C-alpha cells in the first residue's frame, strides 16, 4: 500500500470537519430571525426524503444510475410498509425490523 495513507486520512478528517463545525459554532449563539427559523425547520423535511427516496428508487451499478420503480423491486414494498407503519405511530425499531424482513424475504424469493 502507498505511504501517504495517514496524510490522506488527515486530509479527509479536516475536509469533513470543515463541513460539520463552522455552521454549528456560528449559528449556536445568536437569536435567529423568524424566516431563518422557518428555513431551519424545513431543512429536515427536505433532507430526509432526499436521503431516503433515492436509496429506495435509484440503483447505481458501477456509475450508471437507473430508476428502479418496478413492482418487482423489493425496497419499494419495504418502503410502503415502513411508511404506513410509521404514520400509524408504530415503534421505530419494530417498523424498521419489519421493513428489513420484508425486503430480505422478497429478495430471497426473487
Amino acid at each position, binding site marked *: 500500500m502507498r505511504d501517504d495513507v495517514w496524510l490522506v486520512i488527515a486530509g479527509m478528517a479536516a475536509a469533513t470537519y470543515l*463541513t460539520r463545525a463552522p455552521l454549528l459554532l456560528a449559528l449556536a449563539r445568536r437569536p435567529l430571525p423568524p424566516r431563518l427559523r422557518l428555513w431551519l425547520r424545513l431543512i429536515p423535511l427536505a433532507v430526509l426524503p432526499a436521503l431516503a427516496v433515492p436509496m429506495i428508487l435509484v440503483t447505481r451499478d458501477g456509475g450508471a444510475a437507473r430508476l428502479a420503480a418496478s413492482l418487482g423491486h423489493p425496497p419499494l414494498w419495504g418502503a410502503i410498509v415502513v411508511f404506513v407503519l410509521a404514520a400509524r405511530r408504530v415503534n421505530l425499531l419494530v417498523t424498521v425490523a419489519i421493513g428489513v424482513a420484508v425486503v430480505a424475504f422478497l429478495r430471497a424469493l426473487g
Partner: protein
Amino acid sequence: MREGLVASLALVPSVFVYGTVFGGLAVQAGLRPLEVLGMSVFVFAGASQFVAIPMLAAGAPALAIVVTTYVINMRHYLMAATLAPSFRTFPRGWLALVAHVINDESFAVAVARRNPPDPWVFIGSALAVSGAFLAGVSVGTPLGGLVADPARWGLDFAFPAVFLALVALQLRRRADWLVALTAAVVAVAVALVLPGTWHVIVAGVVVSTVGMLALSPEDA
C-alpha cells in the same frame, strides 16, 4: 440522552454490520488495521470512507480523495445549521466535539423527536451510532468482514427505512407534505444524473429555500 440512545436502537445492527463490511473491505484493499480504525475515528463519515477505499487502492492522488470526501460530506452543512440553535447553552469546546459526530442517522432521530431538536437526544443517538460503527469496524478489520453481502439480509434497507419513518412522523401540515414530496422528486431526478450525494445537497438547499420564501414565517 437515554431517549436518543433508545430511539437509535433500530439502527445499531445495520450500522454495526456496515462497520464490519467497511473494516473488511479496507483491509482487503491493503490498509493496515490501525489506519482503518484511525480513518473511522477521525473522519467518521461512512459514505465518504467507502468511496475513499477503492480510490486509495487505485492510487488516486491524495487531493482528489480529500476533495471527493468534502463534496460527499457537504450535506453536513445543512444538518449543522439545523442543529445549531439547540446547542445554544453549550460551551464552545463541547460544540467543537459535538460537530465531529454529526451524522445522517442521529440528525434524523433528533429532528423527528422534537422541534426544535433536543441536544441530548442528538448526543445519545450519536453515542449509539458511533459506538455501533466503531465496534463494527473493530470486529470486521481482523476478520476481513463478517457478512459478505448485507443486502441479502435486507440490512441495506434499514437506512432508508429509518429516514422514511422519521419523515412520516414529521408530516403534520399540508405544507410539510408538499416540501417532503417535492424534495423526494427533485432528489430522485438529481440522483439519476449526478454521482455521489449531490442529490441530498441540491434537493435539501433548493426545496427548503423555496419553501422558506413561499411560506409565511408563522409556519415555523
